[in-house]
């Protein structure tokens, strides 16, 4: 018996080495290609080109304006108070509704206290709460405190899309067979997508509240898995040139990258003119972005956008 066990172990060891060798030689890869190569498998959602808006009537324009209101769901924690305060003071003012969801209450800032330490369970509760209190709002944007979002550009992206259709947008990434939207660069859900999601939350088999996997999946992947069961798939948000609108890096970092890869055309090679999100920016960098987006501009250059968004009331830095 012992000798058989010995042979078995030797066999296992040989098998392991065999597998390693093969993967190193590249003839057979245990994983899949990185996201950039299999981009063609992704679904793309592009913002409208300049000419598309000219064909809409006044009535349609008004309808769009109402349809495109955004409810912001911002997941915060007291330990990152300064980011929370910055989100409150900067980009979230441009949401039609902005609600902060916290893991625990704090006297410093106002939030919906979900009293939940588990990140996935907290996200579920927040989404459910947002859905139940949606009112007339039909688009939902989930952000972390280190995200900076330009809500007007989010509206531009979803302008001609029907929120009664399921949309799940952002920076779409791939993990094996699963396509998911990266959390830190913001997740966009249409009303229909959120509705289906809240529904599948009740299904403990498909969408368990406490993950049963051996290694815990991150919340964004769990979200994608649950949504997949309802027939909703992740789509990459892009501008009319195919440039990604949701960035998982800070603008400084992206410019630095572009200086290395496109030294002769740094700015054009970097980021979209109508980018929606950046991630990993410091609170000070967020204040600079507020100034750069909502105030600083070259005199005498105008864009006659056919839809106008007014500045929020009671605000000074925009």
């Amino acid at each position, binding site marked *: 018996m012992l*000798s*058989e066990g010995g*042979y*078995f*172990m030797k*066999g*296992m060891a*040989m*098998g392991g080495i065999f*597998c390693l060798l093969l993967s190193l030689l590249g003839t057979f890869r*245990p*994983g*899949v290609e990185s*996201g*950039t190569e299999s*981009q063609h498998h992704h679904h793309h959602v592009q913002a409208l080109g300049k000419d598309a808006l000219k064909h809409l009537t006044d009535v349609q324009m008004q309808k769009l*304006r109402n349809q495109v*209101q955004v409810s912001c769901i911002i997941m915060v924690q007291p330990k990152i108070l300064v980011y929370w305060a910055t989100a409150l003071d900067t980009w979230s003012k441009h949401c039609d509704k902005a609600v902060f969801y916290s893991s625990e209450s704090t006297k410093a800032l106002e939030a919906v206290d979900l009293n939940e330490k588990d990140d996935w369970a907290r996200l579920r509760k927040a989404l459910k709460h947002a859905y139940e209190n949606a009112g007339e709002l039909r688009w939902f944007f989930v952000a972390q405190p280190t995200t900076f979002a330009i809500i*007007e550009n989010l509206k531009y992206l979803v302008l001609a899309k029907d929120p009664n259709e399921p949309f799940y947008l952002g920076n779409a990434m791939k993990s*094996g067979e699963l396509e998911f939207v990266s959390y830190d660069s913001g997740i966009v859900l249409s009303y229909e997508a959120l509705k289906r999601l809240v529904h599948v939350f009740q299904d403990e088999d498909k969408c368990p509240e406490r993950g049963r996997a051996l*290694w815990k999946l991150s919340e964004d992947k769990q979200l994608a898995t649950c949504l997949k069961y309802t027939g909703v798939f992740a789509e990459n948000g892009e501008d009319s*040139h*195919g*440039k990604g609108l949701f960035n998982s890096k800070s603008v400084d970092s992206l410019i630095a990258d572009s*200086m290395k*890869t*496109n030294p*002769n055309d*740094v700015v054009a090679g*970097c*980021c979209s*003119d*109508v980018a929606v999100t950046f991630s990993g920016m410091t609170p*000070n*960098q967020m*204040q*600079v972005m*507020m*100034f*750069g*987006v*909502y*105030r600083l501009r*070259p*005199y*005498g*250059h*105008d*864009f*006659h*956008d*056919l*839809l*106008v*968004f*007014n*500045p929020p*009331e009671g605000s*000074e830095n*925009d």
Partner: protein
Amino acid sequence: MTALRSKASFCAGFVVGTFTLYVVLRQVYFEKTLSPQKPGSFDPLHGHQPPEEEENTWKKERSALFNLKHPHHIGEDSGMADELFKKVRILCWVMTGPKNLETKARHVKSTWSRHCNVIVFMSSVEDPDFPTVGLGTKEGRDQLYWKTIRAFHYAYEHHSNDADWFLKADDDTYVIVDNLRWVLSNHTPDEPIYFGRRFKPYTKQGYMSGGAGYVLSREAVRRFVEGFKSKVCTHTTSVEDLAMGQCMEKVGVLAGDTRDTLHRETFHPFIPEQHLTAKFPKSFWYWSYCYYPISEGSNCCSDVSVSFHYVDALNMYLMEYYTYHLRAFGYRYRYQPPAPKGYNVAQSSSWHAMEEKEVQTSQGKAQEGGGKVH
């Protein structure tokens, strides 16, 4: 029999080993290959990226670069900016040196200087390729005023017919030239006047910060050159901006006010982050130097800011992105700077002939006109 069973065990072990490692490697590989789309590389499906900006044509002549066409984006209405480009001609000269050409001046050339009518890089040594003018001085902080004196003399001798206004900037100054044209648009090049970020000490009328950049009218440059000819002005100190201010005062050139209609500064001696977020200690020199009252926070800086200083290479491109590229679709800015006198906004472009469809949101009321404090 035993040999067969051994072989069977071995094979079973082999299969199990292979499969186990496959699963492990697969999991490890997934976590590593999660990378978003590389910035700068475009989806081959969508084809070649069309250029955002129209090609702008430059002409290299006599160690200067002449912009023949004002750069702007496809799809934007830059009628007003184009008109100002023709009527408010600016020669930008950038103080640089041989060691800074590749690390600093190059980025100025790639970014903001493309919006000047004429751009001249002033160095101690001539470089016909960059191109730079050789002023024949040495390098170093003590040479700054010598370089300035010679640079303005050079500009006056070679380019007084090519421009109405003459801007001095450092190779770490970022200038939004379109906004400079707005500031200058209600003045004429025959006025003896100069503009910048006004400091108050050591002089009666104040002087302009060197790092934040300053701009002289053609008449002011003429008087500067005359001042040196008649020895009214001399090399008083190597503190370039102060020395310039002292000379300007002597030759009767007025120190102008560059604040916008809400009294917000347009020329800035630091980077945006510092003006917007830093709390300068009261002992800091800045408090006692500024001619006008300092505003901290978002009121520090005008929407039509003209310049920032201590801008490194990365921040040059970041400023370019923020100023000329990144915007909020459809956003109606709170501050509407008043149009310069004598410029007819309505006739400057055909866009205004189109019916502008405007609908209010439930978010805030419309803010009207310029000059209104909210």
